[in-house]
């Protein structure tokens, strides 16, 4: 009984929250304009499914493209600054500076350069997910045990050989952990960009729905985002287990 409860507890909690939400709205008589009930949101989702679909697709597309570019850039930068103390000390302050700029503030600049639409969303999704990847990968590489490095150096291993055989594999658990964070951040990035400047995407759809007081549709948009975010997170969690199971000592 107990192990089964442990496994089902998270699902029970989620269902419980929705039931409580439903009952609370009914009991308190809360207006649909403020907080629609979950059943109303679900109904709105099916009612507008045809309209939602292209927006969801657009958001998924910009998120994934931005994410892929972000991973490429983040991984390369992480390897670069992780494998050289000089590069680390030189580039880190700049990276911290860039990462501390609220990303919503750079969207207008992207719009200025590339016009409203897909490109700013991709760029925002990309730029928002680079930093956690860089930090994780460079940490993994820079914290190779000094003894291990001495063993490799005493074998006259070249720097790239140490990086390839020790540094990179060692940083993979950090890398995959950062991917889970990065994919959810990418969603944030593209939705922000869509909300500020786009005529497509879930963010834009929610903006329009709220301006016409179609609150259940706004919440349906939120639900779509949540489902997409959770799904991608889960996919990367599975990949992580497959690729770096050794770090969890479960092989």
């Amino acid at each position, binding site marked *: 009984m107990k192990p089964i409860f442990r496994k089902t507890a998270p699902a029970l909690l989620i269902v419980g929250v929705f039931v409580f939400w439903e009952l609370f709205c009914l009991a308190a008589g809360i207006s649909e304009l403020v907080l629609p009930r979950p059943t109303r949101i679900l109904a709105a989702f099916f009612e507008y499914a045809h309209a939602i679909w292209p927006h969801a697709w657009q958001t998924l597309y910009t998120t994934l493209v931005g994410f892929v570019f972000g991973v490429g850039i983040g991984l390369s930068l992480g390897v670069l600054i992780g494998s050289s103390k000089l590069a680390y000390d030189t580039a880190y302050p700049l990276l911290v500076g860039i990462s501390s700029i609220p990303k919503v503030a750079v969207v207008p600049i992207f719009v200025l350069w590339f016009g409203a639409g897909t490109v700013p969303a991709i760029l925002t999704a990309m730029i928002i997910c680079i930093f956690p990847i860089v930090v994780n990968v460079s940490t993994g590489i820079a914290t190779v*045990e000094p*003894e291990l490095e*001495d063993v490799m*150096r*005493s*074998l*006259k291993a070249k720097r790239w050989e140490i990086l390839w*055989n020790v540094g990179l594999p060692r940083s993979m658990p950090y890398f995959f952990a950062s991917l889970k964070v990065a994919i959810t951040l990418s969603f944030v990035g593209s939705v922000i960009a869509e909300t500020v400047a786009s005529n497509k995407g879930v963010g834009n759809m929610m903006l329009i729905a709220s301006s016409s007081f179609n609150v259940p549709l706004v919440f349906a948009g939120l639900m779509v985002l949540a489902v997409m975010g959770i799904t991608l997170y889960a996919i990367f969690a599975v990949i992580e287990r497959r690729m*770096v199971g*050794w770090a969890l000592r479960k092989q």
Partner: protein
Amino acid sequence: MSNARYVELEKVGVTFGQGTETTEALQPTSLKIAKGDFLALVGPSGCGKSTILKLISELLPPTTGNIFFGGRELGANPVRVGMAFQSASLLPWMSVRDNIMLPLKIVPPFKAGFRAKKEGEYRERADALLAQVGLEDFADKSPWQLSGGMMQRANLCRALIHDPDLLLLDEPFGALDQFTREELWQTMQDLWIERKPTVILVTHDLREAAYLANRICVMSPRPGRIVDDRQVAFPRPRPIDLTFQADFGTLVQELRSLIVHAPKEKKAVTV
């Protein structure tokens, strides 16, 4: 090439730091090591024992003096070195066997054939070595499935797989319990008797030095210099019971008093 001067340190000194903030780690030291010898360096911590290993393995350049290997200056010809430290630092994403084969991937001439031979010749080589240290059943395990003593056995295998000219051991048994440590001493002795590598062992365990080595150099506190250099004549293979015999105890006592009563900080002789 003279075998008695396989490795030669000629007035080698090491100073860390620059300008006025300098620390002398090693006083100008001269040392000759014969081919196939088993030398132990003992001394108080921070005396520069490990520094000597780092010099010979080219991890650290000497501040003064010259190091020769096989009659030629170090760096002129590649010296094949195997190193093992106190932490086994096996790579957790590889099997024990793959860990041991790592040097073959890096060191010429083995690296040239690595792709072709890693499933054949090299694999057999690794398995033979693992069998020799009693790890034949653990080749496919992950490093974290081994005990501390087993990890050090694997660590020794990794240091020996590429038939190094020099085996440099930096307190490899330091973190083990007494029983495991003594088992490892015997394994180490067997490996040495069979392969006859030139070994330099850094340790602060005097019994370990007396049991394993042919020759013991005692070093003074920092800045280190060699204050005593003696041969250890016990016949091989040495049984572990040897460590309870009177003349073994006497040797350990003598080494101990040399270290305890070593003259404190002495001004370095400038050359």
